[in-house]
């Protein structure tokens, strides 16, 4: 016969082990989530340049509209880098929580290339297209806000084409055309319809 006080001690010890196990598992998960979040929010390599007060055109899904908003962005003198940082400043707004126009985590501009003085190719991450919500208006709002913001802050660009992870893709998420070169003046006219 095991004494009663010994039984209680063992039961308490088992409960303590169980609770500490649960706490350890929760802490591990929390740690992982924090690491993941930190990775997502990891600042990109510091950009040499001056902070500028620019206007960016943002999509607002609730209103189905585009609106100009001020933003303070570090913009380098180099034209390509300036274009990339300008585009990233738009995506940064969409990746916030809450977002006026939510995009998938990991949506980013990998690089931009000037094919000629007035023609630019924008290479996006795979997540930018793979995780983009599908719909004509949603997709057009994204592309229009990016191109129009570029148009306003990096002068002299007449044609823009998007790549996804270095490759051509037919559409952004089933609708908006990614095969053609976008004429910035045509996009400017289209943007007026949304403003």
């Amino acid at each position, binding site marked *: 016969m095991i004494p009663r006080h010994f039984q209680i001690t063992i039961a308490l010890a088992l409960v303590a082990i169980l609770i500490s196990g649960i706490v350890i598992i929760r802490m591990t998960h929390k740690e992982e989530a924090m690491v993941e979040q930190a990775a997502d929010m990891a600042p990109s390599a510091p950009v040499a340049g001056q902070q500028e007060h620019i206007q960016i055109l943002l999509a607002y899904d609730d209103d*189905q509209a585009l609106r100009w908003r001020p933003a303070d962005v570090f913009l380098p003198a180099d034209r390509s880098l300036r274009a990339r940082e300008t585009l990233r400043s738009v995506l940064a707004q969409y990746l916030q929580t809450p977002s006026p126009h939510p995009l998938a985590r990991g949506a980013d501009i990998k690089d931009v290339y000037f094919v000629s003085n007035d023609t630019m190719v924008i290479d996006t991450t795979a997540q930018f297209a793979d995780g983009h919500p599908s719909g*004509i208006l949603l997709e057009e709002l994204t592309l229009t806000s990016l191109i129009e913001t570029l148009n306003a802050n990096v002068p002299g660009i007449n044609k823009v084409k998007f790549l996804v992870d270095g490759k051509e893709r037919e559409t952004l998420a089933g609708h908006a055309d990614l*095969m*053609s070169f976008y004429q910035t003046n045509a996009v400017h006219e289209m943007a007026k319809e*949304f403003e």
Partner: protein
Amino acid sequence: MRWNKAGFALVIFVLGWLVPISGATPEPQLTVYTAQASYSVSVLDRGGKPYISVTDLLSPLGASSPQLKNKEWRMELNKAEIRFSPDKDKATVRGHQADLGGRVLVEEGRVLVPLDAALPLLSRSLNTMVDFHRPARRIFIGSGFTRFYAQFKNEDQSSLVLNFSQPVKPDVSHDQDRTTLLFRKEPIVSETSKQLFGDGAIQSLIYSEDNGTASLTVTGNAALEITRSDDGKTITLQPEKPAVEAVAESTPQNEPATTEGQRHTPEFFVMIDPSHGGSDKGASFGSKLLEKDITLRLARELHKELEERGIASRLLRDGDIEIGLERRAEITNEQHAGIYVALHAGFPGHGVRVYSPLLNDPQQIAGRFLPWESAQSAALARSQAVAQAVTAEMRKKGLSVASMGVPLRPLNNMVGPAIAVELAPEGDGLQSLENQKRQNAVASAIASGIAQARIQMGARP
């Protein structure tokens, strides 16, 4: 006496066989039409469900015989391997699973699949457009349809001239005041099911499909005689003449029945494109509601609405099949659609959005040969007119609507007028996308807008 009984029994036995044969309904069959030929496949009843043999379905297209390997039946067609497992409701085509809509049965080495499996098996293995008219059991591979238009003449003697895009040889039968042309092998299709011509000798033309065949039935108050001409591409029906008069007026057989006034102008029709399909689901609204399903339902509704207004229309897909954007444009351009309407459903917001094409290179000058990316150049103004007319009709019906130009595929690749219509959820939630009343209203407004635009464009009635 014994012989009498035996004879009587024999008569009863023979009658027992003959009666069902004479009154038998035709065996259910599926007809498959290809660009080269057409063939029929017997439809079997298995537990109340229609089944077909995969060998009967695929062998005429060049498929190998099914071979049993590792408990799987394997065939090859168009360099695609097709695998069936007995009692499973999925097959593997080109490494991807295809839903067959029922279990695979194997009977004495014959692999049987549900009738509905014909569409995924053919479309995935052949990688081409397959159109399945399910109720009539007719399958069209590719776009080699035979179309026709009817020309009714009410002159001294009324006549009905049927002009077909390909030579036809129908079985003709007469039953009192109706003459029926039955097409067993010809891939005849029509978007108009009934045309009325008044109450004279020729009163109506009815198109119908059933059991793997199509038929045209002409009714009137007189017996009709039939003349074939133009190498079988034209059939003329007119009231029979008295024998003497007929001999006096007879014309040489080789003389074409068409007159100078008849011209083979292409039939105006609207190409309705239910966007997405197959593995391309489009936007998702919750776990079950998909854009590809909403667009197909809306497309069928629009087809009905257009038909009610006497406007022919075709569905670019009438099943859950995948067609690429380039192919959608190719089909529409090849068939010379009068107007192309792409149907979409998507977030955000509410109401309906009507889009007209916006060319990325507006400086492009329309010439004889157009770049694919700006094939729309020559039709841009007409597309905008159609979008305006549809938008106006939606406003008239009290629908919340926005209209804009966007660079959208495949609108910019269309050589004719093209628009896209996107249905957004209403305030009361996602179910509004499925709401029959709302779909009816939207389809009706689109059809009315197209009817208005068609008048403006001066299309042939």
